Structures are given as C-alpha cells and as structure tokens.
C-alpha cells in the first residue's frame, strides 16, 4: 500500500518542511544571546555581556572609543562603502562590470570587524567583503578590477594583509587556518614578533560547505589563532539560512570546542568590540573563535539575482528599521556628536569618490595575453613557453596582413 503519509502535492512537502523549520528555528534562535550596544533607535546601552560555554564574558573592555571622532569615522566608512556599492551597481547596469556583488545592509558587520583588525592580522575574504577591504586600505577601484574582468586579483595581498577574493565558497577558510598555523610557528621561532591572528570571512550558506567543518577541526586541533567571521545575512542566493542549519550558527563552535558569539551585525559598535575581543583571544594563544554577525542582505545576492522571486516583502520591512547607517546617524544626531555640516561634507566626499571610481573603471587597462602566459608558473615551463611562441607568431601574422592591405 502506498502510505497515506506521502504528501499529495509538492507544495505540501514545502509546507511541512517550512513548519518544521520554523518550529525548530524559533526554539533554537532563542537559545543564543545576541550582543548589541547600539539599538535600532540610536540609543546606546551600557553593558555588553554574554554567556559563552557557561561563562559570562564581559566585552565592554573591548569597546573602542565611543567619542565623536571614533563614531564619526565608523559612520564615514559605512557611508562611503554604501555609496561605493551603489556606484558599482550602476556601473554593472551600464555594462561596465560583468557582475556586481552588493553589500548593502552588511556595512556594520564589515566595517566593525575590519576596524578591529590590527595591521599584522591577515584577513581572508569571500567576495562581498568590500567594507573590510576598505578598512585594509584596498582602493575601491582595485576591487572592481575583478568584476571588470581585467584580473582575478586586483591588489597585492601581502601589502594590505588582505587576501584575494575567493569565488569557491569556503575554500579560503582553510587558508586562513593554515596561515594562522604559520603565525603560531613564527612566534615560536621568534617571540619578539607582534602577536597576530587571521580572520576567515564566510556566509551562512558557505557554513554548510565541508571546508568550513574541516577548517574548524584544524583550528581547534592546533589551537590556531584564527577568528571565523560568519556574516549571516539570512540568505544564500535564494535559500534561507534555516536550510543550512538547525541551530544558530554561533552555537556550532561549541561542537568544535571553542567559543561562538552572536553579535548584532547591524550594530557597528558591538561588532567592533566583539571582534576586538575575539582577535585578542586568538592572538594571546587562547585559540579560535567563531563570530556570527546577524545581519541582512538588503540588496540582491548579485546583479544577476532576482529577490522578488523568493523573498517576502514583510521580511524587508522588518529589517529596514535596523539599517546600520540609520541607527548610527540617529545616535550621532541625538547625542549632538555630528551636525549637518558633517553629513553634508560626507555626502560630497562620497560623490567625488564615486566620480573618481567611475573614471578609474573606464580607464582600466586590459592586460595583454603575454602577462597571462607569464603568471601560470613561477619557474620556466616548456609547454607554456611553446604555446606563448605559437600565440605570438599567430598574432604577428595578423599584423603582417594589416601591412599588406
């Protein structure tokens, strides 16, 4: 007999799954503290504690300065990177970029964590970490070289201690752990070196990849000074986070034996504090930390994506008031830490940055094929040399043809 338990139609399966997910979800979501300092209405709370592995941890010593200068500089970074995002989206729409990966909504998670890093720390991004790139001194135009199709890199990773973007999800998390193992060894050999850590950035979708599991196992086994920074923006293209995990992502760390913290990813002040704590923890030899920055991808996944096909509009309305820029602006204004002149100047600065960005993109030089042949191997390679010679002769044939015309 075919069982009556078999759902009659496909939509029923979806419904059953959805109900199960949300029941489990609500229960589990409540089981993890979310750290927040700056509330959506712009008020700033005092305490900053959370229970991790049964222990109350006070993060407040890790709060960076909360004076006007510091908060204004955080706001400035967030504002500029959002403007950069808008300009890049426009450039893609105009056919100047092959693809764009927007970060709108995730400014606080990126600027807050990026600003917590010290120069000797090393960050391994996925492909959306434009805000982190900004804090590492990568020029905005350098980021667009990849999306313009003139390179797969764009900057010198060693100069900025900011690795190249990685399009294969989660692959870089292992590189971050290996790099951290290298830091560990360097320090054993030379204790006078400054303490350092690496940071692996990845998303809620990537958290399902095997490499994330393997990197957490390696990090724990070797007590590597690495911080896993997961931006849970609720979506992996069209798939919600509930399909990736039944427990809040921060709690996964427990299974690997190191602390996991969930922070309000739209609160730049809290993100900075928690990341400073985590980096300090890692650098001082206490081992890895997982941070889950709870945030929301307000824009499409990429310019090739259509969120209207899968996203509920209520969702967006719910997240709109939690906008990371709006809340810091509210705080700066109500506390009298910034005036109209500050915001006006910033708007003007962003406008000229956008103009410069556009000019830079349009004037990007296309690499010659010779340079492609040259970067396959470090040492001479006969096959590459042979094919390069063929290519040059072939191209030269066209030049001759032109002359005869």
């Amino acid at each position, binding site marked *: 007999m075919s069982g009556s338990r078999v759902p009659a139609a496909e939509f029923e399966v979806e419904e059953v799954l959805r109900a199960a997910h949300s029941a489990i979800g609500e229960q589990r979501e409540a089981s993890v503290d979310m750290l927040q300092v700056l509330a959506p209405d712009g008020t700033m709370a005092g305490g900053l504690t959370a229970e991790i592995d049964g222990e109350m941890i006070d993060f407040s010593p890790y709060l960076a300065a909360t004076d006007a200068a510091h908060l204004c500089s955080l706001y400035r970074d967030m504002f500029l990177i959002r403007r950069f995002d808008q300009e890049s989206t426009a450039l893609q729409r105009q056919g100047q970029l092959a693809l764009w990966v927007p970060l709108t909504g995730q400014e606080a998670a990126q600027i807050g964590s990026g600003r917590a890093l010290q120069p000797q720390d090393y960050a391994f991004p996925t492909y959306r970490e434009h805000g982190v790139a900004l804090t590492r001194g990568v020029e905005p135009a350098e980021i667009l070289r990849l999306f313009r199709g003139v390179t797969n890199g764009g900057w010198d*990773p060693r100069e900025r201690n900011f690795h190249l973007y990685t399009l294969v999800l989660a692959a870089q998390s*292992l*590189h971050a752990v*290996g790099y951290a193992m290298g*830091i560990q*060894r360097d320090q054993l050999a030379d204790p006078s070196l400054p303490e350092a850590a690496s940071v692996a950035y990845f998303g809620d979708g990537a958290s399902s990849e095997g490499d994330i599991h393997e990197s957490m196992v390696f990090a724990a086994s070797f007590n590597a000074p690495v911080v896993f920074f997961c931006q849970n923006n609720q979506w992996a293209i069209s798939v919600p986070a509930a399909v990736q995990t039944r427990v809040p992502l921060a709690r996964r760390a427990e299974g690997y034996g190191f602390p996991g913290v969930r922070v309000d990813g739209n609160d730049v002040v809290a993100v900075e504090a928690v990341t400073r704590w985590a980096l300090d923890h890692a650098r001082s030899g206490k081992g890895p930390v997982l941070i889950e920055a709870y945030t929301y991808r307000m824009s499409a996944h990429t310019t090739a994506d259509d969120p209207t096909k899968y996203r509920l509009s209520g969702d967006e309305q719910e997240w709109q008031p939690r906008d990371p820029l709006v809340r810091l602006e509210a705080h700066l204004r109500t506390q009298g830490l910034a005036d109209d002149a500050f915001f006006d100047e910033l708007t003007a600065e962003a406008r000229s940055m956008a103009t410069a960005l556009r000019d830079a993109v349009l004037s990007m030089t296309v690499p010659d094929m010779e340079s492609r042949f040259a970067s*396959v191997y470090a040492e001479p*390679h006969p096959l590459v040399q042979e094919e390069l010679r063929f290519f040059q002769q072939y191209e030269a044939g066209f030049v001759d043809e032109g002359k005869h015309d």
Partner: protein
Amino acid sequence: MATMTIAKAINEGLRASLTQDPRTLLMGEDIGELGGVYRVTDGLKRDFGAMRVVDSPLAESGIIGTAIGLALRGYRPVCEIQFDGFVFPGFNQITTQLAKLRTRSDGMLSAPVVIRIPYGGGIGSVEHHSESPEALFAHTAGLRIITPSNPQDAYWMIQQAVSCEDPVIVFEPKRRYWLKGEVDTSAPAGDPFSAHVLRAGTDATIVAYGPLVPVALAAAAAAEEDGRSVEVIDLRSISPIDFDTVTESVTRTGRLIVAHEAPTFGGIGGEIAARISERAFLSLEAPVIRVGGFHMPYPVARVEEHYLPDIDRILEALDRAFAY
C-alpha cells in the same frame, strides 16, 4: 653510495629537506609515530618533532587547504595523501586553489606546496587503493607532476619538489616502494622535469613512467631476443612532459609505444601520441600505440594482473607497430 629502497630514498630526501630549511614541514594522516602507512616518513617525527612532522586531522581538503595557508605565510609544506583514491576530497583545493594561486594573484603569490601520493596497483589491495589519477591533475595548468621510478631519482626529485616555487604533485609508485637501488647523495641532481633515456635502441621507443618503467625495460630486453632494438624512456615528469627527448628518440626509431597503468582514454598516453604525431609525423613508421588500463574503475585485486600492462602487452603493442 648507498643501496636503499625507493621508500627509504624518499625518507632520506625528506630528511635532507627538513634539515636544510626550517620552513619545510610535513603534514598528513598517520605520518608521525607510525611513519605513514608505507613508513615513508619513518623516524622523521622523532628527529624533527611534532611541529615539523604533523599528524593532521583526517581531512584531505583540510591538509591541502591549510598547507596553502602555510605557504602564504612562507612555509614549505609537504602533504602526504594516504592513497591515490583518497585525494578526491582534496581535489577542489588542489585544482581551484593551489593550481591557480599564482595566476589569480597576477604572479604576486607563490604556492610552493608539495603533495605526495602513493599511486597505482599491483599490491592486491581493496578499492580506492590502486588508482592512477595523474591525468586528472595533469590537465590542470599551474601544477607540476613528477613520478620517480628508482631510488636515485626518488631521493633527488622529492627534494627538488620541495625547493620548487610551483606546486608539485609527486606520484609515488607504491608497488615499487621496496625496489632497491644505488643512491648517490652527492651526485648533481639534474632537471627533475626532464625525461631520461634508460636504454638505447634503434627500432622502436617505449615511453613509460613510475611503476611501469621496470616493465618497459623487461619488455625491451625480451624484444632484443627477437632481434628488435628498443629504446626505453623514463618520462619522470608528467607535467610538463619532456617532448624534446621523446621526439628526438622517435625521430631515430620511427616507432612509439606509450605505457602507463591509468586508463588509456583521456590519458597521458593520448597526449604524447598527439604531440609526437605533430612533431615527428614523417618519421613515424606506425601509429603511436598506447598500452594502459581499460575504461573501467580499477578492478578487484583478483583480476588486476589482467588489467595491469605487463611485458606481454607491451610486446604485443610492439608487434603491432612493426606490422605496419
């Protein structure tokens, strides 16, 4: 001059690399106390410590991925993959990350990671312990692939792999680990990416590598009894391939047999046949003939002798080449 097995020669080569450069480190499953399932790293942890000879978690992607991170920090990791069939969980890290690091960084970053893989059949083992996946890696630009066939080469080639700025995969012929030979630790090392003519001949050329080199030599000896003078080339490097040495030989002998354990379809033999057809077409007396595995997953051990190319299969190929 000392006599040692291939396994011991690799062990001595690794020892030399670990001694010369404190940034060299070994990582893999069971390579510490146990010395690896083939004992290739025997005694190295005892002598260099757990920081230099690292028993890693059981995770191939993890081994290769963290090795890439260590290389970015200036280290020279040598990874051991326990068996050929188990490299696939790490395939992604090798092909999408390791092989491309240099290109993706426009030449700014190097990835001097070595991956050692015991490969090939003939040991009567269970599935996933006898495969020859070299072509899957050779197809990927950015990697270098070598395979020693004797202790002298094994001793030097592993050290040359460690000092190479590019990622190198060393396919180690596991059924020859116990093959003994003389090792001159003071001889100049030579180019690891060049082929060696092991036996001179005038009528045909056999190209082989790794585990099939002794088989090719034996076939050439048997052919001599039939009055055929057969040249034998040990390819040694699968990527790049030393086509100059092969072309030069075929130009003289006019006939080419390529022998390897991997399936012939889409394999290295096809690549060699195509290149030699382009380079020496007018010298060829016969089509290039491939001898290799069949288009099937590596078969169960009880029938592997029928799968593995042996002397007779190479002689049969020679007969066909001479029949033209």
